[in-house]
């Protein structure tokens, strides 16, 4: 009974969200991010990207994923980091996003799949109005590092954040 109650409280604090689970972690600059592994379809090496005109700067274009045309987003540019040349570690993570289908996101490098316990996850602190944290599922404390767990549907969906100042 006790355990049930504890979980219920957690669920109330953040309705419809049970943060514990497996995350694919990757690097952008000096920061480590995590994506729920269930959203990840595959990881591919960066390939030729066909530019699409008249789209926001963080949209790199489209690629041919075994016969399917899928859009590719540069997460660096999306989050307001400076752009960077591709390296041997640059990857495209193909994810499945609600209402949009498959989307590729370019990241600096992919790290590992982590099993994060719900108790190790904090909510994003409130930074005031200037910094949106809606797209952050939570902050995972893993050893001495903090991984930023992303809510992909919000990052890439209609209600996606504007690039954040001071990141």
């Amino acid at each position: 009974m006790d355990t049930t109650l504890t979980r219920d409280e957690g669920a109330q604090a953040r309705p419809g969200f049970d943060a514990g689970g497996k995350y694919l972690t990757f690097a952008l600059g000096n920061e480590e991010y995590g994506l729920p592994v269930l959203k990840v379809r595959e990881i591919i090496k960066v390939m030729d990207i066909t530019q699409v005109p008249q789209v926001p700067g963080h949209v790199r274009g489209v690629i041919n994923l075994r016969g399917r045309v899928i859009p590719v987003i540069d997460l660096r540019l999306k989050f307001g980091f400076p752009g960077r040349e591709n390296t041997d570690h640059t990857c495209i993570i193909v994810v499945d996003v609600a209402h949009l289908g498959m989307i590729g996101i370019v990241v600096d490098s992919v790290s590992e799949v982590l099993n994060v316990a719900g108790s190790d996850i904090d909510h994003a602190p409130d930074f005031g109005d200037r910094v949106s944290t809606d797209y952050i599922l939570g902050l995972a404390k893993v050893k001495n590092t903090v991984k930023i767990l992303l809510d992909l549907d919000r990052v890439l969906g209609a209600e996606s954040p504007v690039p954040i100042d001071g990141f």
Partner: protein
Amino acid sequence: MAESQGWDRIAEALDRLAADLRAGARAIEPARTELFELAGAIEAGAGPSPIVDRMRVLASTLTRQNAEEVVGAVSALVRDRDKPATSDGNGPATPSDDVAAFALDLELGTMFVTDALDHLGTIESTILQLEAAPDDTKLLNDVFRPFHTVKGNAGVLGLMSIQEVAHKLETLLDLARSGKHALGPAEVDVVLKSVDLLTLMIRELPARAAGQVGTDVSRRRRELLEMVNALIAGGPAADAQPAAAAPHEAAAPAAAVRKERRDDAQSTVKVNTRKLDALLDMVGELVIAQSILAEDPVLVRSLDERLNDRLAQLKRITSELQRSAMAMRMVPIRQTFQKMARLVRDMGRQSDKPITLVLSGEDTELDRKVVEQLNDPLMHMIRNCIDHGIEPAAERKAAGKPITAEIRLSAHHQAGSIVVEVADDGAGLNTDKIRETALEHGILDADAQLSPSEIHQLIFQAGFSTADEVTEISGRGVGMDVVRRNVESLRGRIDIQTSPGRGTTFVVRLPLTLAIVDGLVLSVGAERFVIPTFAVRESLRPLPDQVHTLQGRPRMVRVRERLIPLLHLGSVFRISGAREQIAESTVVIVEDADRPVALVVDELLGKYEVVIKSLGDAFGSVRGVAGGAILGDGRIGLILDAGGLLSLVGTDALDPAA
């Protein structure tokens, strides 16, 4: 009375179960078991009944979330057991439909709707063939069987009013099958009416299950059932009309109908189109992988005969596979044609113009999407034929023509496209009248000199309608301009041939598929683009004196005394590495709705057939881009859209050379 006690016990047990579930005192699995046991108890006491079947269906849908509704629905079943359900139909006329089971198992419900509508479509097309060949027992069975299936499935879902209608029709057709009842126009009418009614009722099911109020069909339903009862009893149907239309003309269509049925028995499988598209994607990739392999320098240089044989074999297999995969998207145009048979029959009766519809080439196959979108334009053309083309019977008689008019609907392949023709033997287009109307509507200038065929083209202009009176069916507002737009949106073309007093033919030419387009591949910087060849007028390397500048920038190219705006793709699309000097570039003139634009590109790479892919929802719509195509090397080239490009003219406000 022992039986009624049994029912009471069951009702009590259900009440207890409901209370327990509400209080959370009962787990789902045991509750489900109890429901099944209660169903078993009823069956043991009262014998098999629809109630028992439905209880089982409901019980199997039981979950924690819907527990109360399910048990409530079962209780209602037990409570209302004496209300007339179905079959004998002698009770009160309208059994109330319970959409609860439908709402509880939406998947099952949705399947029923798709399936039933399919069956009704079969009935509709088959009954018209049957009318032309009333002795064909196979056709009769083909009408009977779907009614039977709809009846059975509706019963399982507790859709009693639907079940009852289907059951009545089944009874009537069964009499016909056993030779006790002849099928005439009245029977065909009743079948068609019931198809309409059932289609309406079934279409509305999802909305009603979601709590919306549907159309009140109780009167229509009652009248229909009375008509069927009257027919079964051997009397005339309530509104049996003298057969104005087809029966005497039956010979011709019957022959046509007979020969086409030979391969009806081929078995088919329904496949989700997403799966099919995924397969096509993979086959496309296989073809690309194969051609990359075949062109690999190591292999090209190789003299190993065995290796070359094997590569050739691989190539044969992949191209055969591609052909088969493409063929899977193709469906015969038959179903669409047969829908027209219904339209002609109904309109002929309403307008008192006896008409036969002659179909040919129903087996011609084309892309499923094209077939679907061809429905509306065909319907408008046929309405147009009946309303405006075919003369009233008296006029035809006076002109020495057969009173029964003929509309011919045909399809055939021609040089990589499909040609669909709608021909009538009516009065032909009235050139003077069209001219007059066009003047009235301001479509035409009074001093314009047009040839008759140019005048005929005017009927495709928006806002044109020559019908003196607006009929209920061909109505106002939707005219031939919409037909032309529909056809053009399928990348097709429509033409008219007409001869006074002899009739009019609409000729529609369509591509076989919307999935593939013939395109010119262009390069700009490192990017490649595809422009559909149907939009391309010509390409040229302009001489310096052909290019005209505006405010110091090249803005126009003069081609045979025509000034065409230039659009520098590299600069509007901000492509790095594009050639800057127009003297080094190639110009491709493309056209949309007779407006040209000259695209400045680096080079033409050739003409290819490419598969059109959507860029996906993530982009919304990008002006000037219609989609993406996977090119021979596996990379993507964007497909350009001439209309969108035209709207971009002038947006490259900066110096194209900048």
